[in-house]
């Protein structure tokens, strides 16, 4: 980096607005889809694990191994299958990470349902499926949501490593900045990734409030008392 180089060149940002916007959209898609897919897969797996307890130990062991895999290596392993610079090459490994976070969250969430609540639902004649959908899953929402927040925020920032194989959303700015020894794109990238993650996190918190109206009623009652 040259000594007279300013930390941020605003004119560069102005000239590259449309490129930055495209990368932002790409990053959003590649960051959020894995959490969605991860949740869709984690629900049945988590249900199975809490139903048949013997499954949980091996499943969580396997997910722990997945969690330890370097994302960069996973991307590279997939290149022969899905192709270089394809979204799928980034989305598939990130889905595995989301799964590693979400399966324990689903299991813990279902375990957080008090036994007497379960028994009450049964006594009221709920079928197991209805009990699951109307009683157990709603009570599990806060715990599952906590897992989703972690998966979403780290997913959005992990996308950028994909830049090393040519598809990393805002991570592309890091590669550009490093190759040109030019800090502006790197700073823009870091700031946008953090803002994107914080915004997604905020939306999840809001969704959690809407999904658990009883918690708000309880909070307000608690404050009044």
């Amino acid at each position, binding site marked *: 980096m040259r000594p007279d180089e300013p930390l941020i060149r605003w004119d560069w940002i102005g000239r590259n607005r449309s490129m930055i916007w495209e990368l932002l959209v790409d990053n959003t898609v590649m960051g959020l889809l894995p959490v969605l897919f991860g949740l869709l897969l984690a629900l049945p797996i988590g249900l199975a694990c809490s139903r048949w307890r013997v499954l949980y130990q091996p499943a969580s062991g396997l997910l722990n191994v997945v*969690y330890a895999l370097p994302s960069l290596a996973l991307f590279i*392993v997939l290149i022969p299958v899905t192709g270089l610079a394809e979204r799928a090459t980034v989305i598939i490994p990130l889905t595995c990470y989301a799964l590693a976070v979400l399966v324990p969250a689903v299991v813990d969430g279902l375990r957080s349902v008090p036994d007497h609540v379960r028994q009450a639902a049964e006594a009221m004649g709920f079928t197991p499926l209805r009990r699951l959908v109307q009683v157990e899953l709603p009570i599990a929402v806060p715990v599952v949501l906590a897992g989703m*927040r972690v998966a979403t925020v*780290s997913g959005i920032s992990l996308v950028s*490593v994909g830049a090393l194989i040519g598809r990393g959303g805002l*991570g592309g700015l890091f590669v550009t900045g490093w190759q040109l020894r030019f800090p502006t794109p*790197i700073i823009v990238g870091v700031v946008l990734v*953090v803002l994107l993650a914080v915004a997604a996190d905020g939306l999840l918190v809001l969704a959690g409030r809407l999904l658990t109206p009883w918690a708000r009623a309880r909070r307000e009652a608690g404050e009044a008392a």
Partner: protein
Amino acid sequence: MSWLADFFGDPANWAGPYGIPVRLAEHAGFCALALGLAALVAVPLGLLAGHTGRGVHLVTFTANAARALPTLGLLVLVMLLAGVGTLPVLVPLVALAVPPILVNTCEGVRGVDPDLLDAAYGMGLRGHQVLLRVRTPVALPLILLGLRLAAIQVVATATVAAYVGLGGLGRFIIDGLATRDYPQTLGGATLVVLLALAVQAAFAVVERVAVSKGVSRRVRGG
């Protein structure tokens, strides 16, 4: 599976200044240093916030925002501004390790059964004694879990350091990618996973030794 033999069977990969033992040691070195620094910052802060109940929201918010910091971006930025070296690579790794340690320590200390705390205060313990003798031992399993999660993430992510020309196991991955030598890439990834599993096992041992028998429910009754 022939890549296993290609990579691990080649004696050239085991010897010299760029061999597997050297890269493994470099990698483990970065990671241990980053984890140690992160623990030095995050554990006391988490204990304090959890004990006093002050700043808990700030802790959770900052930790969550810090999780969003992209390691690759932070790495290249620090390298550009501060120059290539081992120290700059620690910045993104410490930033990666702090959130899980901080949140787990804070939540662990906060989540201690209030009856237990009443009993401790009733026995005449002072605030800091309650923190050190009651809250910390009871929260220890969660604190260790935070450290373990942080360690695994750091071990997996330290591979990125090779992109800016540093050593560690990422060298095998990045160089393998550059030369389309997939056995090398997969070999490097395998070593990272093995290191992460070794770290997991080490934490299991530490937990067994450090956590009080009463807390881990290995003794009952009394």
